[in-house]
């Protein structure tokens, strides 16, 4: 089976961990996130009849006190950038992180998950901006709460890891 390492990155409280919690098979407790800053889970998806095992590195949130440890991104076949749709700044930071990652390890496929789409009333992202973003990247509005688009996000990323866009 093809295996791919993918990384989940984003600022704290955007729902990264919630996003994967329901969709992955794991061995380690979430305490790892706070101890060593990463928690590893697994998700198997199928891309055009090919089974792909995604080894998901959920990397602890990036903030002023503990900037993202880029070391963990090494060897990643793809990035799932998670932003909070109710906080536009989180998207900016996610894009910055993507740039930092690509600067460190070269271009790598990424899927942008705009999370908390269930919080419609609080949605704060400019539709035009999202549309522009879509031209250069795969952007999915997801909800860890309802599960909307979460599988689609992993599927899309899996596809890219097999066939880099």
């Amino acid at each position, binding site marked *: *089976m*093809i*295996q*791919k*390492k993918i990384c989940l990155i984003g600022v704290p409280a955007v729902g990264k961990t919630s996003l994967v919690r329901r969709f992955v098979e*794991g*061995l*380690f407790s979430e305490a*790892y996130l706070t101890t*060593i*800053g*990463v928690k*590893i*889970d*697994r998700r198997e998806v199928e891309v055009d009849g090919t089974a*792909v*095992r995604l*080894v998901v*590195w959920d990397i602890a949130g990036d903030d002023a006190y503990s900037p993202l*440890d880029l*070391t*963990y991104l*090494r*060897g*990643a*076949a793809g990035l799932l950038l998670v932003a909070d749709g109710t906080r536009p700044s989180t998207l900016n930071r996610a894009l910055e992180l993507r740039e930092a990652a690509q600067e460190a*390890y*070269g*271009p*790598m*496929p990424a899927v942008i998950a705009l999370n908390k789409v269930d919080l419609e009333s609080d949605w704060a992202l400019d539709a035009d901006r999202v549309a522009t973003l879509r031209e250069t990247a795969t952007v999915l509005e997801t909800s860890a709460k309802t599960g909307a688009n979460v599988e689609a996000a992993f599927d899309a990323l899996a596809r890219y*890891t097999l*066939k*880099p866009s």
Partner: protein
Amino acid sequence: MLRRSRPEAPAPASPRGSPRVSAPTPPDPPDSTYQSPVAHELATADELRRLVLGHDRADLLDRWAEAGPEHLDAAALSDMLPDAVRLRERRDDELGRALEPSIESGLRVSVERDPQPIADILFPVMGPAIRRAVRQAVASSMDNLNRSVNYGLSWKGLKWRVEAWRRGVSFGEVVLHHTLRYRVEQVLLVHRETGLPLQHAVAPEVASANGEDDADLVSSMLTALRQFVGDSFDVDEDDALNAFQAGDLTVWAETGPDALLATVVRGTPSASFRERMAGVLATLHAKHAAAFDAFEGDATPFESTNDTLRSLLDAEYADDSKAGSAKLWILALLLLGLLGYLGWRMWETHQREAAFLQALEAEPGVTVLRTEREGGRLVVIGASDPLGRAPLSLLPEELDSSDVDLRFVSALSDDPQLVAQRATRAFDLPDGVTLRAEPGGRIIAEGDADTLWAAEARRLLPVLGARQLDVSGLVPALEEVIADVEALTLTFEEGSAQPVGMERIQRHVGHLAQLANDTVVLIIEGHTDDTGTDAENQALSLSRAVSVRNAVLPNAGTLTIRAEGYADTRALESGVSPSSRRVTFRVESAGNRPDSTSAQAP
């Protein structure tokens, strides 16, 4: 840089050759629009034929076929065939697919006809593998059997059974827990960059709870941990977390340029195991350099490394350490016992030696001058009299001549017993005489014998180690004493009855009395010469006998003595005769006559 992001990454699977070609049946070159270079060449040739021969080439081919294969350019085809095969192989696996049925049926035919050639071909491949598998299976079952036998019936086995029952685990697990020195439970080959597992081997005895399924998570987490430790402690990732302990488990990691080899070991492996890991990792790098380079998440090319990884899945069982310590105890006890025994033996030997020396000292004729030790042997230096017992013969049975060295010189002993022995041999002793010696060189002769030998014996005394021979203790025989007494004569002055020089007679009578007591009668006979009257002579002769009797009475003891007067009846000559004026002695056995001391007339 990530290889996967390269734009020139392998192109998506392009459509294979023509649908006809993809069919598993062998292609039919003359009739196909073959796409491979070889096919292309064939197609070109076909086209050429068509141009030259027109559209009726099918007819022509038929005719070629009828004419025989030699008209096909076999030589040219044989030149092209290897290249053609290689070219096609490079493009796709159709040739293999095409040949598969033929090869299969060919093999089947060959095996049906005679399986030996195929068996011979396969033997070098299968033989070692089969042997190894059998060896492993036998070794493993022997191990288990040994352990079961070792621990199944012992006191410890019983204890472990109770423990197993108490903890609710299998007996085997408890035995393992107590006897396992180390067991390599998992071996992971991890791609360094991605942290993805390339190959994973798990010991068959290990429960599959955290088995192969979680290899990806474990290897990724291990990679993350190493990165975390490397970052946190600012050490090179190559050196970070090369070993860590988790309960009973030890995780060892060896880092290579492309891959990480991690082993999960229960217990404490020996240091040489790490060297083996490094060796295995180096081998894997050498053999699979290209595969490491091209790794894009597909671990299939690394399946061949599984055997190599499995070679690291070994286990070492401790010799039962407690049994070992018990053995040690037994050994110590044995040693102690041995020491005790040796000590006792030494003490005993000393006792025996002391007793032996004491016996030597006490032995007549043996003198111990000094003792010493030579290499543990007792050396006794001394002198011994050849007449006495040899010192060696005094050696007790428990000591032999290898324990004791006797260095004795011969010497004449002044031991009284030996002096007496020596004298007895040297003197020509009459029967009935015994000798004894006293300290100071005095030999005392005793017994019933005369003392004629004594004069000769005295001359020998100095050479016998003696100075004096005392024969006073000798008692003559009765007959001799009687004869001596009867030979005695005592003469008197004319007309006198006064005895003179009685000492000798008194001594002889004393002897007689001593020997005979009252068994004999001593008769003292008085005599005169024939001068004078008969009456005077009778009175004088009796008077002479009586006076002698009176003189010897003090020596007579219980002896009966009779005095008798014979006047001149036994005068030795006529006339005045001094020799006839005498007394003579006669001894008779008692009871012949009534006891009397009175003078009797003849």
